[in-house]
């Protein structure tokens, strides 16, 4: 069994070892080993040139990564949390995402950017939000959300290989989970959603940290005689519409779980896809289970109450299946 953080580290090691164009940079990723200890030991192994500590200025080091990618390198940039990444949003939206388009296809930006997202660690309203939908809104970049140990490894490899900017959102509560890691197997396409658990009564559609809660909810629902299918979106841009619609066409009911705020969320997007393309398959209104629309509270019980939890998923699924 391997931990999620070790899986990311293994992928980083492989990339640094096998491709001299790859280098890794971010805040505290070198000497300190990364805020989530993902890059522990990498600076010793690969040196200060290839594992670089950056100043606390996201706009600068994300921009530098974009420049290096334009220059032929394969940079991997770590941003400490998605909240901080907003400082670099101009570089992302106005440079990384548009360069291929504005150069008439002459330039590509093969950068991979990793960052932590999500709440649950009591680090309050400036370190706990889920803003991956902001990124998924932007054409020209791709967005991944690995929920499993295997995906944490495979998706980083795929992101570096991809010729376009790829943003990877790692839920901060997942770094400690353990699971099997096969570094030899051919990974499934990162752009396709996965059915993590088949079921026939309701589809629980989730991504990232919420996938595990959806799976627990599915187990609870099974005890009540409700068979829930769990869909892991995996790729947030592009969204795998076929798998989403395919699942709901079998179950005819959908609960979308998203740790972002409900308004304008990926859950909204998935719901709209279902309304647009699977309307005649729906036997109940689509339900969304999202974070309560408040800045993330610091107090433990309030934070727990704000974030989607298993009981809220179960209740939404139950309402969808039995009505009421």
């Amino acid at each position, binding site marked *: 069994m391997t931990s999620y953080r070790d899986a990311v580290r293994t992928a980083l090691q492989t990339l640094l070892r096998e491709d001299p164009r790859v280098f890794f940079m971010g805040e505290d990723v070198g000497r300190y080993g990364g805020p989530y200890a993902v890059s522990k030991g990498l600076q010793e192994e690969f040196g200060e040139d290839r594992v670089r500590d950056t100043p606390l200025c996201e706009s600068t080091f994300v921009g530098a990564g974009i420049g290096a990618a334009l220059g032929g390198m394969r940079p991997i940039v770590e941003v400490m949390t998605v909240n901080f990444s907003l400082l670099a949003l101009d570089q992302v939206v106005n440079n990384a995402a548009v360069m291929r388009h504005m150069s008439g296809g002459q330039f590509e930006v093969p950068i991979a950017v990793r960052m932590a997202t999500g709440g649950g660690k009591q680090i309050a309203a400036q370190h706990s939000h889920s803003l991956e939908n902001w990124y998924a809104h932007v054409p020209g970049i791709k967005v991944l959300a690995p929920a499993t140990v295997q995906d944490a490894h495979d998706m980083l490899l795929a992101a570096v290989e991809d010729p376009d900017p790829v943003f990877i959102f790692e839920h901060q509560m997942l770094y400690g989970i353990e699971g099997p890691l096969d570094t030899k197997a051919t990974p499934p396409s990162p752009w396709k959603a996965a059915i993590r658990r088949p079921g026939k009564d309701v589809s629980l559609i989730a991504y990232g940290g919420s996938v595990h*809660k959806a799976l627990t909810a599915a187990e609870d629902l099974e005890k009540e005689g409700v068979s829930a299918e769990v869909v892991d979106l995996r790729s947030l841009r592009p969204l795998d519409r076929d798998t989403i619609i395919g699942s709901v066409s079998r179950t005819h009911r959908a609960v979308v779980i998203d740790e972002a705020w409900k308004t304008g969320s990926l859950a909204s997007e998935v719901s709209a896809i279902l309304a647009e393309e699977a309307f005649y398959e729906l036997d109940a209104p689509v339900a969304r289970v999202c974070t309560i629309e408040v800045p993330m509270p610091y107090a433990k019980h309030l934070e727990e109450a704000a974030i989607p939890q298993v009981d809220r998923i179960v209740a939404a699924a139950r309402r969808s299946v039995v009505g009421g």
Partner: protein
Amino acid sequence: MAEFVMPSLGADMTTGVLATWRVAVGDHVSQGDIIAEVETDKGLIEVEVFETGVVERLLVEEGEKVPVGTVLAEIDTVSVSAAESVPATVPVSEPASATVSATVSVPASAPGSILSAGSSEVDLDGPLASPAVRRRAHELDVSLQGIRGSGQHGRITLDDLVGVGRRARSGASERVRISPYARRMAAERGLDISKLPGTGPGGAIQASDVRSAKASGPSEPASPAERMQRVIAAAMTRANDEIPHYYVEQSIDMGNALAWLRKSNASVSVNERLVSGVLVLRAVALALRKHKSLNATWQGGQAVPSEEVHVGLAVSLRGGGLVAPALRNTDEGSLTDLMARMTDLVSRARSGALRSSEITSATITLTSLGERGVESVTPIIFPPQVAIVGCGATLERPWVVDGQVVPRPVMRVTLGGDHRVSNGHRGARFLSALDRLLQEPEKL
């Protein structure tokens, strides 16, 4: 998971007997496979499955009689599609560390938790609702009684009232509250949604309500022949009530066709002989290619033309009864092949071994009563089709050719059309096309 349901093999079928299972649990089935035989008022019918997958459960035993729409078997399509397509069932690791299990565990009865603990144990004495909710309910003129609250302990919230308000208004416009999927199912099964009871939220009709819709027809008639007659009665009554028929008739000189047929039959073995009916059948199919508005079905208030021509053949059963199974793609293949298919279809119709797709897929019907000597037929359209062709006997008649009266074998053909879809002019053009085709039998 897909459900294999008792199909509706005709607009007026309400129940069917699952006569034989052709598959067992664990069998792999592909779309189009015959997996069961169903006994209906029209006889024994082979029923195809529309999914590909593995038979997971057989829910109805052989001999059991169930309403249309009853789930007969469950087909596991997931494991098949998982094996064939991309979204594979990838095992996810169990959250192992303490930090994660904390995030996924439910804060069950944590003091100060603002999460709802569920409503089951609270003894309600009238609905729980805040003053704001009560005022809003008064404004909307809706009763709080019977509304299921989504708040703590079943408390009715303002959000709950938004839905109810909408319900009340929509009820006034007599709109049926039904899920899109259930609406589609009901349409496919020919069920009237205004008569279905809804058990979903706010009385909404859901798929389960459509599935369990009970047959509400009159009591069961005694014999199969009586049951079949009842089906015909219902279909023909509906046709006469709903379809504004028009008729056009034409006498067609069958001299060339019969001469060609005699010559052709004399030169082939007895097993390859054709009957004149097959020439008419093919000519009807070819004429329809140019007159698509007659080759259509009436669906949801409009005609939907069919790209393919499946002529239904009215087959009377010795001892009473009538079925009109489709000869699929009647306009394709050789005449010998069409003859073989027609012979097979008629004998299966008479022995009660029709397939469900043959029962339901006809795009027009051809009825021929000439064998018994009648001169012409005024047929009634078989809904949901929009046209029907009737043939009388081919009889020796005085016929004027180049100013001379000569005896010719003449057949009287009648086209019955649905005036909502086409008009007499179209029918007339179809009949002259049919006439022209029958003058050149070698080209059929």
